[in-house]
């Protein structure tokens, strides 16, 4: 099951990240997972939120440069070797991970991780075959 990640272009300017977060906060949107890819002169904020449609509309209406990307969220055992276990599945099946990051919260004893794959459809199929638990859209919305 694919989830929607929102990427926001952030120029290197004081308070720009605050602007995004406060706008989402005022609109009643909850950030579930977040990471920032930064370069010398700009950054890209990546977030998974509870209401992604509303979030993208709001951001664009407020002149943020934002786009949607398919990602997959996976529950991983919160114990030594937990992440390695899942990465082994990917390695064995030639699934390429472009980047990954962790959730802010979790809903069981397991850790929650967001993965961006080179080929999302193929990755979700393999995850289903291997019986790996992925997080559904409903779960994100109700987290």
């Amino acid at each position: 099951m694919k989830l929607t990640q929102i990427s926001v272009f952030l120029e290197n300017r004081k308070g720009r990240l605050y602007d995004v977060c406060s706008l989402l906060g005022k609109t009643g949107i909850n950030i579930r997972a977040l990471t920032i890819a930064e370069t010398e002169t700009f950054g890209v904020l990546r977030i998974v939120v509870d209401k992604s449609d509303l979030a993208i509309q709001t951001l664009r209406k407020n002149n943020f440069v934002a786009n949607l990307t398919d990602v997959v969220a996976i529950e991983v055992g919160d114990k030594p070797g937990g992440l390695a276990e899942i990465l082994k599945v990917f390695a064995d099946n030639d699934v390429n991970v472009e980047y990954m990051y962790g959730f802010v919260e979790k809903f069981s004893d397991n850790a929650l991780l967001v993965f961006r794959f080179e080929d999302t459809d193929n990755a979700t199929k393999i995850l289903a075959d291997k019986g790996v638990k992925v997080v559904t859209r409903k779960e994100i919305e109700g987290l």
Partner: protein
Amino acid sequence: MDVPFWNKEIETADRSRLEAIQLERLRETVGWALKTPFYQKQLRQAKISSADDIRSLADLRKIPFTTKDDLRLNFPRGLLAVDMKDVVRIHSSSGTTGIPTVIYYSKEDIDNWTDMLARCLFSTGVTSRDVFQNMMTYGMFTGGLGMHYGAERVGMAVIPMGGGNTKRQIKTMKDFGTTAIHVTPSYLLHIHTKLEEAEVKREDLVLKKAFTGAEPHSEDIRKKIERIWNIDAYNSYGLSELNGPGVAFECVYKNDMHLWEDGYIVEIIDPDTGEPVRDGDSGEVVLTNLIRRATPMLRYRTRDLAYLHTDPCPCGRTHRRLSRIMGRTDDMLIINGINLFPSQIEEVVMRIPEVATNYIIQVEKRGDLDHLTVKVEIYPKLFLGDPSQLEALKGRITEELRSAIILHPTVELHEPNSLPVSEGKAKRVIDLRPKE
């Protein structure tokens, strides 16, 4: 003070003699100009159909001005006055909108120009015993080859280094005992900061003189150069439309630049009205080339602002002195000696689809060198959420700018509508360099 002359008779000729030479050469130049499609049209407007229509120097003012745009619009051969078989050199400068300007030289033209440069260099006291390192860019830019020829004519040992490669410049100065250099003032200051890195001490060098040009600079900068290097620095002025370097040059007294009036007619005009200013007032420098047959140039508007000194120089030369360049009448920027029009940058950034319509050009000093930053807004629809895509875009813009303007800018990506837009005409250029 010992005052050396390359051609004492001409350099100290009295006013009436100079004006007689000017009139004779102006008539000759008008004759050449009438061979070009561009000047046929211009001179017809002024009811001048042959050299005989020029009876006095005052008749010069009947001739319409020539502008950089005229040169562009008549590219490539509209101002060529000789058969191509008689052309021995072509120089060119980059254009403001992609169309360059071109200057042709005959063998005699190169010879005349070279002689002017020899006169310039010799007047500062260099001789055939000097070792001359030319740090100006060679190629289509006149600052490289032009000065090279002049220095050879003086008999100096010429090292044709060209620009850049600072450590090698320093090492070369040491290896060959360079005594004189031709360089932009900002680069000369920059080299000084790299001596230690090059593991060369000032005492290892025998440098005595620097000829600074290609970018306007203040008296304070000259003093700073002379102090930190312990050398004499001489200001110079020239532009390819008027052959190149060597139009005006400082003598041993270093009190502004003798403009060689047997080779050029100088006028200082009010840029708004085109009328001459009062003697000694500042205005736009307008120059007529009297010593180039292949590409005649009549009343060329340089866009440079300066004034002429009215008092004589103690060296005894009668040719009037041009002040330092005080500014420009257009929006041209001079960055590390390279001329840049904002429109050149606009042309590049606007053809890149990922870039929105707003951009800012910022110039500042980093150490002693100028640094150019181009800030562009990205076009939201083409943002895919991927930083590597943006890095690639940044790299592409940098590379396209570099090949278009020679300079290597820093490119910054910004959000749409984030760059300041002033009311009315957008203010695209922010020049943060200190004004002296």
